[in-house]
């Protein structure tokens, strides 16, 4: 449900850098900021809630948050780019979280990741053109014995091999 709302907003938004925010979205963000009394030290919490509401944190959203909190865009962007939990790009309908932790790595994760990128035609950190898949690297999913591991949405896929990737993706296409 949340995922659907996200991609819907994301697709509708198409917010390019430097563009003004639509008024209704600005108002939604202002309500969140007001809940934290516009306190700049709540920046991370505010960003978290705004991301939940909007789906992602495009530049005009961050500029708006900076303006309202009276902090610099350099600060806000610094925080957003530091934490992997924040994303400036819209997320796809299906989120692929592939593990590149030590155990998965030695069990062949790099080649698996490469194959996923090849199949979907985008790099990790990005979202496919059709907004169906977004690719994230994670550091450990707690299933080291089953590595290499990837999650597609809430489904865990274990013991992956490069030539098993098309089959893994098929049900979500």
């Amino acid at each position, binding site marked *: 449900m949340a995922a659907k709302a996200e991609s819907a907003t994301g697709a509708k938004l198409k917010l390019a850098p430097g563009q003004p925010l639509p008024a209704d979205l600005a108002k939604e963000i202002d309500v969140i900021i007001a809940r934290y009394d516009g306190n700049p030290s709540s920046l991370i919490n505010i960003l978290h809630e705004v991301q939940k509401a909007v789906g992602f944190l495009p530049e005009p959203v961050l500029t708006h948050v900076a303006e309202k909190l009276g902090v610099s865009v350099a600060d806000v962007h610094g925080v957003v*780019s530091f934490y992997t939990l924040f994303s400036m790009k819209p997320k796809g309908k299906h989120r692929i979280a592939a593990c590149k932790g030590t155990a998965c790595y030695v069990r062949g994760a790099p080649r698996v990741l490469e194959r996923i990128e090849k199949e979907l035609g985008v790099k990790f950190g990005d979202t496919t053109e059709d907004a169906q898949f977004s690719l994230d690297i994670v550091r450990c999913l707690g299933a080291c014995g089953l590595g290499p591991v990837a999650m597609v949405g809430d489904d865990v896929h274990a013991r992956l091999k490069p030539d098993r990737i098309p089959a893994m993706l098929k049900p979500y296409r």
Partner: protein
Amino acid sequence: MATVKLTVDGVPVEVEAGSTVLKAAEKAGINIPTLCYLEGIHEVGACRVCVVDVGAKALQAACVAPVAEGMKVLTNTPAVRTARKTTVELILSNHPDNCPSCVRNLNCELQALAESLNIRGNRFEGARNEWTPDVSSHSIVRDPNKCILCRRCVSVCEKVQGVQAIGPINRGFNTVIAPAFGELLADSVCVNCGQCILVCPVGALYEKDGIAKTWAALSDPGKHVVVQTAPAVRVALGETQGGEPGEVVTGQMVAGLRRLGFDGVMDTDFTADLTILEEGTELIERLTKGGVLPMITSCSPGWIKFIEHFYPDLLPNLSTCKSPQQMFGALAKTFYAEKKGIDPASIFSVSIMPCTAKKFECERPEMRDSGYQDVDVVLTTRELGRMMKEAGIVLDKLPEEEYDPPMGLTTGAAVIFGATGGVCEAALRTVYEVVTKEPLKDVNFKFCRGLAGVKEAEVDLKGTKVKVAVSHSLSNARKVLDMVRAGNPNGWAFIEVMCCPGGCIGGGGQPIPTNTAIRQKRIDGTYTADERLAIRKSHENPAITAIYKEFLGQPLGHKSHELLHTKYTPRGRYRIRKEKAAD
């Protein structure tokens, strides 16, 4: 005051409670190496080059670790030496090995540190970042490949200048210091002040080169190359050749410029005097005819870009006077060309400035009132030092020479433009005498001087009381502007704002290091130069009287408006995307 007793390498010291171990060691006469630490501005304990043994489980960063009663600090144990070396080797493992061609070669804190830690190789070899240097700005080049991520630049930009143009982006190995969203410096709110260059320990930040164009013009027989020198250069240029900060080298500098091949060696001080006449008259007009008050000075281009970005509503308060550099530029290709009978198209106009923002200023589209770009190239004090070095010019060995007419005669009032408070003091010397028609008993307005952030006073022009304020560094400008926005409760009529701490003598184009102690010495040198000059008031400069008679007419007259005054551009605080938004 509570004190704490401790020993550093066995040397007993007593320091104030709450001091850092670094301060205690300093007092004990023991040197602890530092890299990220910048007193009063950046004290975060990030690089861990300064680690020491305080008897705790882990080594502590001396620049942030507080002292404790009875503490036994050891600064030279095998563990300490190894830790420091490892830290620096790790930094160097992601650092280009090209000291010989680096702008900071022989003046680099990292290089000096590697040398003093006796590093003779590197055990670590790993991935190296490959960033594209940002050369978009007219003033500042950022080369992240040499950046060691100490973040001093971020702190100075935020705390001293209140601009916050840059910050760290990403994390870990991918961290880079840049304007928000990785935009180019030229598209950001950066005001080009160069204060970040002054604090950068390495060659990651430097001025946009003007030397190549200058050499080219100097060796072009078809060009008549004129040069102007800003007030603050003469008290700092000596430092580029190992001289004392604040030593006044005006005469040797003039001689050196002639030897470099400049055809006309003149002085920005001349147009500083002219600024006083124009700006003083403008102030008297605003006071008597009900113009916008307080009137704020406009000589400092970093300050101008700052107010355009952050306080555009106060632009009507700015004096319309161009900076002395740009007044000089406009006159060089009109008045000077006419007087010398030279085609202005063949004049190449160079200025030597303590400032990186002047490089941006001379490229502003409105700075072409002569019909040409008024100032062609701006060189920083550092760049002039480099040119002289390249040409084998040793200032100490040169005779003192005089500037060329007709824009070479100057006064003490113009010299003090280089220090915070100087413009205000120079203006008062003239405004007082013009308004009261009486000579000043004492030309020294001492309240204007010194490094206090905001200075204020009331001046009595024989019945007319005028309140003035002086500020330097943009964080202090913010304080003053916020007061003006709040209705100017202190009733200021005139405000001097200089962008850089200490004024132009502490500008972003000055020799490195530039710190508070060195700023103070350059200020002292400035007032010494003032006292040595026979004429100390702008309106008594005979060359100024002559240019009004021969060319300009009168202050604020038609010609002045055409050549010496300007307009400002309100700018946003956020990036305006130029390319079409992607769909």
